[in-house]
């Protein structure tokens, strides 16, 4: 739910609740005041009648008016049961039964006691109440509507800098090496947000820079000792007596150095791809790259009696030359390495996807972990365990999707180019 909607929901609920409670209170208050006024006028009437009776010792003559009815009832005996009392009741003075406010009291004229009933119709009061309630409801509706419209237009506009910031943050890439320059807004909160984000990215950018430097330096620091080991090993090999006694040790050391150096190169490459330090802006003929790589691997494939089958269209992609080579190289390398003698490799390239399929004896691979760093299937202790994660990272960089399938005891890797 959007903040705006959430706020609106709360706001409208609270407003309606307040208005309902307020209206009820208002209704009762108005009702009470109107009744009091009516009662006052009834009392005035009573005083007039009483003073008339006291003066003349006779009942006044009744002139019936539309908003006041007076009635004298002679009491039987001397009952003076009824004291001053206000009542609201229904009565029929004219054609229809209506609500009246009535004051009953007793006067004594001559020797007789009379109960006096003064009635005033409630109709006007009710009409007034209705008008007041109507106006109130209309006002609630108008206030809600206006509030809603203001919120819609004004709040949208007020939040604009916020969404602008979000957009900029979304499109921000650390690897671009540019600072995020967020404008200050008139609103303090947004300015604070922008300022904090600016400061944060600056800090991250700095850390990222030093990390990058660190990887570069680490490469230097590690490759040099590796180079020393390798060159010393080359020299050691020249010593026949050493070699004669330690051939296997030397071969093992050489393999380990080889693997270490390869591992190191792969990790550096992976980091660089993950940090998006490559720009994919070269128009490349992918079919040519595949053909070149196949030619490079042809001798190795021959030594394993592997059969290549190519179905390659003329395909151009926007890519980085070095990365494209690595991508094809790693997939092809795996396809050969984990193949079986006398097996086959099928490469199929179309405008929309590339699939590399190879026969194998390893059985289905764990598709979930296949692309993770240092994942290794069975019988593959010699690989770096990084080949496929590099492939995956390169695909991610280019917004390609890569899929693994195991069909008819063949491994199939398909890359979808996801063209518009």
């Amino acid at each position, binding site marked *: 739910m959007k903040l705006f909607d959430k706020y609106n929901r709360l706001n409208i609920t609270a407003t309606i609740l307040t208005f309902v409670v307020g209206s009820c209170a208002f209704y009762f208050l108005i009702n009470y005041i109107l009744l009091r006024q009516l009662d006052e006028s009834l009392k005035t009437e009573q005083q007039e009648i009483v003073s008339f009776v006291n003066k003349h010792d006779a009942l006044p003559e009744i002139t019936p008016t539309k908003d006041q009815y007076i009635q004298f009832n002679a009491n039987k005996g001397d009952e003076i049961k009824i004291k001053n009392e206000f009542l609201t009741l229904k009565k029929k003075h004219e054609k229809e039964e209506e609500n009246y406010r009535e004051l009953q009291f007793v006067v004594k004229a001559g020797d007789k006691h009379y109960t006096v009933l003064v009635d005033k119709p409630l109709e006007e009061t009710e009409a007034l109440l209705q008008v007041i309630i109507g106006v109130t409801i209309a006002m609630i509706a108008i206030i809600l509507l206006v509030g809603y419209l203001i919120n819609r237009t004004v709040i949208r506009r007020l939040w604009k800098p916020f969404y602008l910031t979000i957009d900029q943050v979304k499109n921000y890439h650390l690897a671009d090496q540019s600072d995020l320059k967020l404008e200050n807004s008139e609103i303090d909160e947004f300015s604070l947000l922008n300022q904090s984000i600016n400061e944060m990215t600056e800090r991250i950018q700095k850390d990222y820079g030093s990390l990058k430097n660190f990887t570069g330096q680490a490469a230097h620091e590690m490759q040099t000792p590796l*180079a020393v080991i390798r060159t*010393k090993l080359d020299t050691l090999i020249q010593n026949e007596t050493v*070699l004669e006694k330690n051939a296997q040790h030397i*071969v093992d050391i050489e393999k380990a150095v080889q693997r270490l*150096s390869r591992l190191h190169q792969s990790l550096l490459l992976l980091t660089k791809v993950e940090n998006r330090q490559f720009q994919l802006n070269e128009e490349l003929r992918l079919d040519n790259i595949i053909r070149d790589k196949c030619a490079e691997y042809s001798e190795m494939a021959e030594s394993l009696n592997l059969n290549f089958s190519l179905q390659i269209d003329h395909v151009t992609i926007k890519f980085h030359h070095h990365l494209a080579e690595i991508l094809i190289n790693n997939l092809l390398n795996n396809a050969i390495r984990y193949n079986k003698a006398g097996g086959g490799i099928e490469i199929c390239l179309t405008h929309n996807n590339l699939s590399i399929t190879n026969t194998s004896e390893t059985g289905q691979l764990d598709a979930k972990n296949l692309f993770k760093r240092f994942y290794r299937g069975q019988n593959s202790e010699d690989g*770096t365990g990084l080949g496929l994660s590099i492939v995956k990272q390169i695909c991610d960089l280019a917004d390609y999707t890569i899929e693994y399938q195991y069909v008819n005891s063949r491994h199939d890797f398909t890359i979808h180019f996801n063209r518009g």
Partner: protein
Amino acid sequence: MKILIVEDEPALNKSMADYLSSQQYLCESVNNFKDALEKIELYQYDCIVLDLMLPGGNGLQLLEALKKANKTDGVIIISAKNELDDKIKGISLGADDYLTKPFHLSELSVRIAAIIRRKNLQGSNQLIFEEIGIDVQARTVSINKTPIVLTRKEYELLLYFIINKNRVLSKNTIAEHLWGDDMDMADNYDFIYAHIKNLRKKLLAAGAGDYIQSVYGMGYKFALR
């Protein structure tokens, strides 16, 4: 042939100097920027082996100094940084080749030989080992002046062997030289064996001696018996 080795790691510097000296090169070693600059300004070298990160300065500045002085010394950069930018920058500043650490000494010597051949146009293009002659310009091989036909890989293999003659070369080194280090084939060196077998067969058939010796199953050596 004079070679200047600019490398701050003493062990590596010594290895390279020893290896190259054994191949009849005259080697001088320096281990910092200042000394390197001095040597470069004073003398002429056939090839300079240049590390980029040096105490006292960057190797690229040395390249600039060479360029400014209109010197034509061959330069091979050896760097731990396998950064494309550095490679391009180095080459554009006049370096002839770029080798990433860690490298094999045999690979270094082949690259140096290639650079020197390219620079010494007035010199001989012939590389001779006993009865085998290689014309490196025309990329042809002859035995006792009779040309023989080799595939590209066989030619490269023979050139590599002759430049690194009398040296034990591990299978791994040979594979890396012929196919580059992208190819990660671990234990599978059968395809190298096939090339070596074919090369030996062709050389023997043309009347050359059997110079390719297998060494304890770990590699090969090209030498007189």
